[in-house]
């Protein structure tokens, strides 16, 4: 009662081996694709690690890179095996290694599937690191003369221009931090002194945003300062004005960018996983059909290929038995020794 038995004659076996050889080489290409996807994601995460507190998790790109390399190695090996499978002399060399190799392939497929799932599921941790990192980035916006943080202004400005976003959740985040350095404030001006005195921490807070928040699609020149003061600007109502500044927060913008990147990578990995499963099944059929050639002197004869020798419950039982035997192996020997000794004693 083998699982999914298929009859193979010589021609069919040859076709199977040839087809598998071709598929394995395509799969090496697919492995290279996964590797480059992982590399691309790693570079993208590195590029913006400044706004992610340098603490983002590189688990997804690292695992994609590892899976890509492993896929290349395994599939080129499988291609070599399929190429040799048509020659009985060469195949005899590979015969003892095929069963453990197939077990490793099955394991590899399971891990590939898990990695593909991870691509979809790990955006939650990214959200937290982004939120923390952006908050810190905005705090250090004015520290352009502090070593180690002098690049933060440029990073945040270019981020807001490129991703068309403003602040952490929205432009009002800029109202709560002092983003103008004290060096450029005129302390002899009454207005500046009043503002600083009226603030509990002595910070200079304005209802203004940096220039990088400005939206070029606005019909009027950008209003950056006194945003909430309608009377400061002619014909302006800050509550109905939508085109003046970017409305989206940078956290949402970056999150959606990385999510779409990881989702598409996950889909590609799933497709490649399906391809790998097909290859593993084909390799299993090839192995069983070549092993079950009844008369080794007649390589042209018909044979049968199957997925599992017995049905699934029986195979599972046999597997459990073999595991139990391994565990009981020592015990049986000890009992035998005892039984051997007691008849001697008695």
């Amino acid at each position: 009662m083998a699982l999914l038995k298929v009859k193979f004659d010589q021609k069919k076996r040859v076709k199977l081996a040839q087809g598998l050889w071709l598929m394995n080489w395509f799969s090496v290409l697919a492995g290279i694709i996964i590797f480059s996807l992982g590399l691309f994601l790693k570079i993208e995460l590195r590029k913006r690690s400044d706004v992610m507190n340098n603490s983002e998790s590189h688990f997804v790109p690292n695992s994609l890179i590892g899976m890509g390399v492993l896929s290349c190695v395994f599939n080129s090996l499988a291609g070599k095996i399929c190429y040799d499978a048509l020659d009985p002399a060469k195949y005899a060399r590979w015969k003892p290694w095929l069963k453990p190799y197939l077990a490793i392939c099955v394991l590899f497929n399971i891990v590939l599937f898990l990695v593909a799932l991870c691509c979809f599921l790990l955006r939650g941790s990214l959200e937290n690191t982004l939120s923390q990192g952006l908050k810190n980035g905005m705090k250090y916006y004015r520290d352009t003369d502090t070593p180690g943080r002098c690049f933060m202004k440029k990073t945040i400005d270019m981020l807001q221009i490129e991703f068309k976003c403003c602040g952490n959740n929205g432009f009002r985040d800029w109202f709560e931090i002092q983003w103008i350095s004290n060096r450029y404030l005129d302390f002899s001006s009454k207005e500046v002194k009043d503002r600083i005195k009226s603030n509990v921490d002595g910070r200079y807070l304005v209802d203004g945003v940096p220039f990088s928040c400005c939206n070029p699609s606005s019909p009027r020149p950008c209003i950056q300062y006194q945003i909430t003061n309608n009377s400061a600007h002619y014909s302006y109502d800050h509550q109905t004005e939508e085109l003046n500044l970017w409305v989206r927060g940078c956290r949402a913008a970056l999150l959606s960018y990385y999510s779409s990147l990881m989702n598409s990578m996950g889909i590609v990995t799933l497709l490649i996983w399906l391809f790998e499963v097909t290859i593993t099944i084909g390799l299993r059929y090839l192995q069983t059909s070549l092993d079950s050639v009844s008369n080794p002197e007649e390589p042209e004869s018909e044979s049968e290929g199957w997925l599992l020798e017995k049905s699934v419950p029986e195979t599972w039982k046999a597997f459990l038995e073999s595991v139990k035997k391994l565990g009981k192996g020592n015990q049986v020997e000890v009992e035998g020794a005892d039984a051997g000794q007691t008849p001697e004693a008695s």
Partner: protein
Amino acid sequence: MAPVLPLVLPLQPRIRLAQGLWLLSWLLALAGGLILLCSGHLLVQLRHLGTFLAPSCQFPALPQASLAAGAVALGTGLVGAGASRASLNAALYPPWRGVLGPLLVAGTAGGGLLVLALGLALALPGSLDEALEEGLGTALAHYRDTEVPGHCQDKRLVDELQLRYHCCGRHGYKDWFGVQWVSSRYLDPSDQDVVDRIQSNVEGLYLTDGVPFSCCNPHSPRPCLQNHLSDSYAHPLFDPRQPNQNLWAQGCHEVLLEHLQDLAGTLGSMLAVTFLLQALVLLGLRYLQTALEGLGGVIDGEGETQGYLFPSGLKEMLKTAWLQGWVARRPAPEEAPPGEAPPKEDLSEA
């Protein structure tokens, strides 16, 4: 009837010629593909930058011509590779015999197209200067006209240009001082300062010493200063006469000119290389064709044959062509059977 530039081709040199041709044809196909990509890229760039070039500018003709030339070069390369591969195999050659003639004609036309595109690549970038001057000037002047049909996108396009290409104004940020870039709709008529400025200007324009936000340079250590740029006392620690990183220093005219001239230069050099390759491939194919015709289409023949460019000198060719045309026209008034004239032409051509 001496053939022009004859070359004796025994079997081994014929095979070498065919193999070398195969390689050259693939190189030609590669070069044609690269030209297609490069001119496609240039076309896409021109679509974005079209507003900043004067409408009378002929520059878009360059990528269009090189697109056509690249396509012909790609086709010539692919067919040439197939033909030279087939000429090594006696069984495959017969269907290719009829293809080689039209291929050579098409290839020569393609070569002409390549020369035309190369000429455009050398001549057109000179006209870019004036076109950019006019186009950028119009775009800056209409920056404020966000509600005038036909110019409502100018503000967004100029802002995006300055943000992406890191430039400000036409030749520098002071160009913005001479243009009213704030629309009158957003000027408060009751504000004394506004009224003063408008009255003091001859044309009634509202001019300020300020620039739009897109001129701001993110590398500056201080938050961007956009207004009162000529006034040394308006901002603490700011001296407009000192070089600073506050705004982008380059003008958009220079940046765009360099960008487009670089693209045209790259395209021009690729066109030159492709023309060379195409000429070599066509010459080789012609010699191969005439040599194999001399053998009567039997490729493996060990005999020596002669390959040539033209069966006879230029004067004799023109004479034969004229006679053929005369013979073709004569039967009509005499009502001779038209079936005689075409076979005569075929015999004299073969």
